[in-house]
């Protein structure tokens, strides 16, 4: 930790990109294993022990494939779109604290920055779908946008609640506030927080286009949605972007509610690499839940999705915001008065 600033940034950037790429590859492997076992199968097993080299084989296959640019597409949009999905996701990792001191840029508005980048993501889907010159892709792009717009609202309301609770937007600061064992996590800060967590988690699922909200790529309706026309690494980059977004979503949930890199019990260390271990353990648990959910539920429709957002998530998240605000402001008054 004695590197000078430019080297530090470079090290982090290389680290983050490696982390994203490796995770995207191995989360696919994990997903296939989870799906396999849920369905009474084994999943990948032929390439390497337990199929562990499968992502490598897949990667080589995707990279060696021709990048087809179909007739009639807008070449610029078509090529830029996958990057527009992946780059913001990678950028968001800049402010994520993996450990007490392990954060690329510990900036005060980290949370705001992540949401700013997250909203660029949907542009990638829109441009990819629009640029593909494919009716299925256009429908999918329209769906993805309306879905993202609908779900930013309850998600942001929940996040505002958390900001009120912690009075900071610095992610590391938030984690530090949750030190001292599992009961100090914001998940248990007040009786409303589990619901807030649930809302945040559902919104994260919807934001990242994961089942049961995978309307954008609904394979039984729209073939593959916005990436119908993509081949080779064009598809691969979309895929990496999707998994990077899942990691971001789960990381945020962990940081906001589940104590980030803090260990669950005080007698367990969270210094140095232990902090990274606790953080990743929680993140991977949530990612497992995301996969578990995907392989359990059928897909919703756009109507169902909007109904859920406007009729259930937004009113309840507003209620939580109000009640939390009241608790923060009114409770000290009462207790202070008595």
């Amino acid at each position, binding site marked *: 930790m004695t590197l000078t600033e430019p080297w530090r940034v470079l090290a982090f950037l290389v680290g983050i990109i490696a982390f994203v790429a490796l995770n995207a590859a191995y989360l696919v492997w994990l997903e296939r294993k989870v799906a396999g076992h849920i369905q009474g199968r084994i999943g990948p097993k032929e390439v390497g022990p337990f199929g562990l080299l499968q992502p490598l084989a897949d990667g080589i296959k995707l990279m060696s494939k021709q990048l087809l640019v179909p007739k009639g597409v807008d070449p610029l949009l078509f090529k830029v779109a996958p990057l527009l999905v992946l780059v913001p996701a990678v950028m968001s990792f800049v402010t994520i604290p993996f450990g007490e001191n392990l954060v690329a840029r510990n900036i005060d508005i980290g949370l705001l920055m992540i949401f700013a980048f997250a909203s660029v993501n949907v542009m990638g889907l829109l441009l990819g779908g629009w640029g593909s010159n494919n009716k299925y892709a256009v*429908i999918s792009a329209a769906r993805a946008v309306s879905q993202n717009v609908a779900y930013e609202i309850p998600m942001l309301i929940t996040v505002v609640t958390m900001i009120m609770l912690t009075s900071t937007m610095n992610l590391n600061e938030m984690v530090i506030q949750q030190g001292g064992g599992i009961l100090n996590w914001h998940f248990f800060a007040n009786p409303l927080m589990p619901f807030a967590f649930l809302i945040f988690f559902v919104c994260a699922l919807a934001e990242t286009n994961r089942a049961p909200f995978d309307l954008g790529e609904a394979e*039984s309706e729209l073939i593959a949605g916005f990436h119908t026309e993509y081949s080779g690494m064009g598809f691969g980059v979309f895929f990496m972007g999707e998994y990077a977004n899942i990691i971001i979503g789960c990381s945020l949930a962990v940081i906001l509610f589940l104590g980030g890199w803090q260990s669950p019990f005080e007698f367990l260390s969270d210094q140095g690499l232990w902090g990274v271990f606790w953080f990743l353990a929680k993140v991977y648990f949530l990612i497992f839940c995301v996969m578990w959910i995907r392989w359990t539920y059928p897909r919703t429709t756009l109507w169902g999705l909007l109904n859920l957002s406007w009729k259930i998530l937004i009113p309840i998240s507003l209620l939580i915001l109000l009640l939390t605000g009241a608790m923060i402001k009114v409770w000290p008054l009462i207790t202070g008065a008595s």
Partner: protein
Amino acid sequence: MNDLARSPNQETFVLNLGPQHPATHGVLRVKLTMDGEYIVDAEPVLGYVHRMHEKMGENRTWVQFMPNTARLDYLGALSYNHGYVKVVEQAMGLEVPERAEYLRVITVELNRIASHLLWFGAFVLDLGGFTPLLYAFDDREHILDLLESVTGSRLTFCYYRFGGLCNDVDDDFLTGTRAFIKRLRKRLPDYHNLVTKNIILINRLKDVGVLSAEMCRKYGATGPVLRGSGVDYDVRKNEPYSVYPELDFEVPVYSEGDSMARYMVRMDEIDQCLRIVEQALDKLPEGPVMAEKVPKILKPAAGDYYGAVEAARGTFGIRIVSDGTNIPYRMKLRSPTFSNLSLYGEASRGLLLPDALALMGSLDLVIPEIDR
């Protein structure tokens, strides 16, 4: 919703659903005229796997046509075998030994369960749920193993003969079937908890794709589609054949007419099929499985004959015209999904794309049977 679909200055586009599309379960093409995601008009285009079985029937003997009947609906082949032997036996006045009839019922009902299980999985797959398909396949695999052990084949069975069956079953089959009944009864609650009661699924199917009983009648829809619209019609009850009158079972009927009703009809039918198989196993008499006086060369008397059976997807009717020779003069195969699909154009008008696909899934299409 319908008003939206019919806004006056609508800008429509044509979406080609199929012939290769994950939701059409085979090579069916639907030409959709869409306004946004609303369907303005849907026109199914058939014939991609048309093989002209009816002409084949005019070129081979009565016996030789048997394998063809298994290739119409490859998921419920035994019902089609049954329909064919039934109408020819009726024309010839052949008496079938009781044991053979009971075994026919047992195997047909097992086949029906297999078909419904596959439909269940594929339908939930249409709705985006992947896992139930694999669970259903697991159970279906047991049925196919059982049927394979008696018929020698997994899909294109060709097990029945005019006047009986080609083989008797062994004890392994009987005990295996009983074990399977037990197994499936244990697993059905899991299916219901995982899928039927799931709020996402309920929201997707309730009040979606409502078919009225009158519409079903006008289009000649039969089977679970008709029973999901509140009409209590099942060939096994209305036109009793084989040994069905001796077995106690109910015909599930739901009156809502939506996709959920059709789903429930089929799920309840699995239950009823299990009941039928169980009773038939209990009552299974000893004896021969082949009638004694079956002529070597069949020559039904000249005339036309009609026979219908309840296949997994509805009424399978078969009209044979004999000119008194050993080769059929005309063979008309009336497949249930042909009629069931014909209402799709009208029924899907004004629906959203995902709802229209849910409706299509709930019709339980098997393309080779539509195209014949």
